[in-house]
């Protein structure tokens, strides 16, 4: 199966120039809000260091902490399940729902359930799953996937939301006011909350020491979804653990500031055990995470707290849109996580990067994102997965650069061609560099020639 690669999918997005610019600006706006929040705390860098260390420490003792978490969560009355992979996760959820014959489910944002494709799985079984985060509901009604992990509908314009709501929620045609549209969604989703048989949430943090979970939202949808029905299912990747409750101080200070430039999310809810008369089931999912732990290069990516800051700042993400990555988690971190699952399918992602390093600068847990992306490029070459369009020019360049004479000749030809060839001979399909930008102006002389002239002038002056 040939899977579409990033450049092709990005080409579709940039074909609409105005939209690409609008998208770029919207994300940059969020990035600027993040900056203002970061500078408001003099201890920002210390927080990042501390967060990074806590996560590395947790990964280094992951098995112990998972067992400690399981013990404590069970003591509180929660039921802990373990899932090796997506399939097992989905089956556990289904069996829990079947037990109480649940037909209507409300779900708050969870990248893990996206990763496991839980919704289509449950829908096939005749179960209605309603995503209750406004952005997620918008993309769900439009039958799309989220294009960002924190701002799922960042690629959609309000006119389009209006059309979608007009069709599904019978809102006034042509009313594009975000207040009006949000109010319509509020009323629509209230009905769903009240009618739900069970609530599913993701997990932002799980605390080994106490057996508790923390879920952060701005809308309050996770909380509403699990405090009306009796069954709460919480789905989490094993990397969400932190050792102690006090460690959350560091992470909650960083998360919302990095994600959306807020001092904290509106609700940061701590669930310890089920509510009286209710049930809490926690599913711990591996799905490839434990394999990442063993790799000293890519272990770092397990520190990620899914704040999305690396996406907001990434010049490639901003201009190519989340869908161009073809993965649940897009952007810089997604381009590291996806190839570690299937490097053949996602081989183009580590190259969707300018290596500018901006992601590394903003990451609240100090993942060296651009270094890891570079590592992945090497890895993909080693695995023989590079396309010929990359290997052939590299082979030629390597051969040419081994001979100073050849290098000089090719350089001179290149400079001459750039100056004298007609545009069509320079800007075409074989020169992707020239797609959206001008080639540099070609100088008459090479650096070497200029240097020689300078040296001989100096000698004659003396």
């Amino acid at each position, binding site marked *: 199966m040939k899977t579409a690669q990033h450049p092709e999918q990005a080409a579709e997005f940039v074909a609409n120039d105005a939209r690409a610019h609008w998208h770029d600006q919207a994300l940059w706006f969020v990035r600027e809000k993040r900056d203002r929040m970061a500078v408001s705390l003099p201890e920002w860098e210390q927080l990042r*260091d501390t967060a990074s260390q806590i996560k590395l420490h947790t990964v280094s003792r992951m098995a112990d902490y998972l067992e400690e978490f399981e013990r404590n969560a069970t003591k509180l009355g929660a039921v802990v399940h373990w899932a*090796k992979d997506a399939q*097992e996760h989905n089956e556990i959820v289904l069996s829990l729902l079947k037990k109480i014959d649940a037909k209507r489910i409300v779900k708050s944002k969870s990248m893990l359930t996206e990763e496991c494709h839980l919704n289509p799985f449950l829908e096939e079984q005749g179960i209605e799953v309603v995503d209750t985060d406004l952005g997620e509901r918008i993309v769900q009604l439009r039958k799309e996937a989220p294009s960002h992990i924190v701002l*799922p509908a960042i690629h959609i314009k309000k006119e389009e939301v209006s059309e979608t709501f007009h069709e599904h929620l019978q809102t006034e045609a042509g009313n594009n006011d975000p207040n009006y549209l949000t109010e319509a969604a*509020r009323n629509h989703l*209230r009905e769903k909350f009240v009618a739900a048989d069970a609530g599913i949430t993701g997990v932002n943090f799980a605390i080994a020491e106490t057996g508790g979970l923390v879920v952060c939202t701005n809308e*309050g949808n996770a909380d509403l979804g699990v405090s009306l029905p009796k069954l709460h299912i919480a789905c989490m990747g094993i990397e969400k653990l932190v*050792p102690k409750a006090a460690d959350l101080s560091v992470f909650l200070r960083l998360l919302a500031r990095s994600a959306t430039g807020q001092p904290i999310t509106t609700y940061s809810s*701590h669930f310890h055990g089920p*509510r009286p008369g209710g049930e809490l089931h926690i599913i711990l999912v591996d799905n490839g995470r434990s394999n990442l732990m063993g790799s000293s290069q890519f272990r770092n990516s397990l520190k990620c707290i899914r704040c999305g800051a690396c996406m907001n700042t990434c010049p490639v993400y901003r201009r190519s849109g989340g869908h161009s990555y073809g993965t649940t988690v897009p952007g810089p971190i997604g381009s590291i996580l996806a190839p570690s699952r299937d490097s053949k399918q996602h081989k183009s992602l580590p190259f969707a990067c300018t290596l500018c390093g901006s992601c590394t600068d903003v990451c609240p847990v100090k993942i060296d994102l651009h270094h890891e992306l570079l590592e992945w490029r090497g890895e993909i070459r080693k695995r023989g997965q590079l396309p010929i369009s990359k290997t052939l020019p590299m082979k030629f360049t390597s051969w040419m650069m081994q001979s100073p004479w050849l290098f000089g000749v090719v350089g001179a030809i290149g400079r001459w061609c750039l100056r004298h060839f007609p545009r069509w001979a320079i800007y075409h399909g074989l020169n992707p560099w020239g797609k959206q930008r001008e080639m540099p102006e070609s100088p008459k002389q090479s650096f070497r020639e200029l240097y020689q002239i300078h040296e001989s002038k100096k000698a004659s002056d003396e």
Partner: protein
Amino acid sequence: MSSRDQILNNIRNQIVASVDHPGLAGEWIRYDDRVEHYATVLAAVGGTAHVVDSAEQILAELNQVPAFAAAKKVVSLCGEVAGNVDFAQIDDPHKLEDVDFAILPAQFAVAENGAVWVDDADVKHRVIYFIPQHLSFIVPAPQDAADAIVDNMHQAYERLSFGQPRFGTFVSGPSKTADIEQSLVIGAHGARSLNVFFLRQ
């Protein structure tokens, strides 16, 4: 082998260098005037802070809030203000669906982010923090409002303990979303407004 054991074994088979926990000591931010800083941050996230000395004052302030004056169904879990719903008698949280206004006690506030901490130790239905159209918190302040406000989240966690089955949450401002073109809209699913009263005693 169970999935549990497979996952744990697989993790234990990885060679991962041991890294120490860094500890949480630090020069974390403090504010000269916690009350003022709290009020500024809360306002920035869409809420309003008040410092009051009596129940009458709370009522006077609440009467200025249009949603309170118009509220038909009011839940109050604070002795200072009367509600008209017998919360203790409610058996099913779904019956709280049409609550217009709730006045609830909060334990303390956090200056750096405008949050208050609440839990369900004495609150039968935790949904009461999320389902009312509008919300007010009363935070007891021993002498000065500043006594009820910690500077930062590190101090906040020093005040919390999690030994038993319980739900607790930091609430910072009313419910909000910016999912439609990054335009901020207050009142996504939860409260449409939030007032926080520091009651000096």
